[in-house]
């Protein structure tokens, strides 16, 4: 193969295991890809050229000596720049932390290293992960590989653009209100927000303690399952970490899905949405029907309250975490993020508690849906990626503000903490990716990978790297 960066993780892993591919060559191909494309994309804040080359050489020695560690051994992976990396700058996309160098690795970074993955660099993000465009005033905007004049979505924008463009084979993002799923959707890749507590957050710079999750972003469903296998598990250092038993997330991906029941909630998810996205969602339903799944359109009126619940909780918890920054270093924070933190600082205790109470009721009602249905499906983002320079986008004749529109359909799943995967379903007439998201009951990520993988097989949207 001419361009090794076009391989999926599973393809490369098979070759590496059989000693038919060198991790040194694989990493070199990705470093060259970064060199050739990052002036256009701005995906990376830090590229770890020397370290990744050194670690690739070490992986090559180990594999040749018969010490293959598993599917991620020798695979180049990127990290959103809020994962603590020992001795390596971790900016959180901010000016305040531009010189912050952690003295330990986040738990998931240690897990990736133990699995033999090669960390190739630290990736662009919306400042403090508090935004949906990755238009960063300190490090410049992350640019969408499908159209570099358009946003990547956020907050894990660099993670999405780097994976989409073949600069790395997979990346870690974080998702508090949609920050894995939104950029995955807009950049045409697969993003998983695991069940709250499934993956350790220790050493991941927080945003909202009761909503934050971390998860993988890849170009195929199987690759995503491979990465989640490596990073899942209980961690005593994360007080919200779950001891629920672990699954092998790749083991069920080939299972027949005929007979499964999928709910497609109409209220809220289709109220403010581009007609092209609606049409592609109808096609996705037809694909599921062709696989023998039953798709029902249902009404869940309670969804209309989710923005009030999630917005109040997210901004208030973010304001608490950044209370010192907002009081003493506000001038160093970008105007959009500063405004959100100040707004969160002004939330009353009454409103916060009311939102948490409503959250409990909402979660109960959503969990009741799973007594009837196996999966909930919904569009991930209501439109294709908008231009970086725009602040609003026209949806069916009405101008909608881009920042809230991006996260409108992803926030409900953070309230519940349920696992949700976003995967591509097609393109707009402007050639921009569109995705759907699938939600399952808690800790049923294996079911999501099964359903998503079967869908991916009948669609044509797998491991596509756009020309840049």
């Amino acid at each position, binding site marked *: 193969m001419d361009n090794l960066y076009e391989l999926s993780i599973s393809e490369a892993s098979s070759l590496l295991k059989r000693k038919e591919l060198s991790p040194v060559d694989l990493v070199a191909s990705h470093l060259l890809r970064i060199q050739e494309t990052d002036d256009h994309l701005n995906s990376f804040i830090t590229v770890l050229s020397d370290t990744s080359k050194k670690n690739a050489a070490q992986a090559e020695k180990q594999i040749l000596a018969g010490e293959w560690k598993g599917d991620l051994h020798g695979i180049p992976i990127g990290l959103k720049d809020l994962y603590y990396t020992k001795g390596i700058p971790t900016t959180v996309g901010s000016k305040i932390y531009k010189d912050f160098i952690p003295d330990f690795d986040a738990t998931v970074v240690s897990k990736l290293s133990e699995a033999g993955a090669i960390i190739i660099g630290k990736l662009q993000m919306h400042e403090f992960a508090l935004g949906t465009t990755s238009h960063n005033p300190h490090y410049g905007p992350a640019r969408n590989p499908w159209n570099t004049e358009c946003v990547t979505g956020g907050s894990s924008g660099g993670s999405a653009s780097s994976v989409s463009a073949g600069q790395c084979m997979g990346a870690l993002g974080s998702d508090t209100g949609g920050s894995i799923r939104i950029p995955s959707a807009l950049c045409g890749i697969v993003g998983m927000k695991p069940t709250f507590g499934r993956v350790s957050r220790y050493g991941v710079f927080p945003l909202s303690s009761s909503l934050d999750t971390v998860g993988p972003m890849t170009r195929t469903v199987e690759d995503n399952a491979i990465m989640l296998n490596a990073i899942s598990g209980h961690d005593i250092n994360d007080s919200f970490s779950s001891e629920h038993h672990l699954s092998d997330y790749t083991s069920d991906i080939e299972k027949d899905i005929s007979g499964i029941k999928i709910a497609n909630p109409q209220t809220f998810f289709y109220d403010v949405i581009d007609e092209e996205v609606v049409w592609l969602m109808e096609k996705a339903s037809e694909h599921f029907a062709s696989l023998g799944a039953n798709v029902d359109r249902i009404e869940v009126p309670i969804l209309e*309250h989710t923005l009030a619940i999630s917005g109040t909780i997210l901004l208030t918890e973010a304001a608490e975490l950044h209370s010192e920054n907002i009081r003493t270093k506000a001038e160093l924070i970008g105007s959009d993020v500063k405004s959100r933190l100040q707004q969160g600082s*002004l939330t009353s205790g009454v409103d916060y508690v009311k939102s948490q*109470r409503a959250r409990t009721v909402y979660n109960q009602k959503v969990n009741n849906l799973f007594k009837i249905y196996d999966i909930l499906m919904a569009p991930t983002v209501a439109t294709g990626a908008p231009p970086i320079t725009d602040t609003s986008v026209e949806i069916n004749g009405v101008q909608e503000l881009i920042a809230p529109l991006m996260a409108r359909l992803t926030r409900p799943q953070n309230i519940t903490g349920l696992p949700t995967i976003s995967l591509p379903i097609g393109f707009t007439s402007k050639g921009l990716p569109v995705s759907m998201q699938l939600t399952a009951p808690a800790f049923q990520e294996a079911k999501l990978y099964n359903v998503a993988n079967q869908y991916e097989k009948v669609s044509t949207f797998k491991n596509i790297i756009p020309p840049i």
Partner: protein
Amino acid sequence: MPHNNELNPDTHTECISKLSIDAEQWAILEPLVKSASNSVKMLDQFLKVETESSAIFALGKV
């Protein structure tokens, strides 16, 4: 029951100052804060059933 989120710069000057909010920013923030609080107020109806059932549970305990 009064809703205690009626924040304004006259009554909370010190608080606003600590949050590095100047008059220009307050002009942007005030409608956002009010709008967000109004959205939360709308949760009252949604929570009514839960509140009533909680009250029944408390009476039962007594």
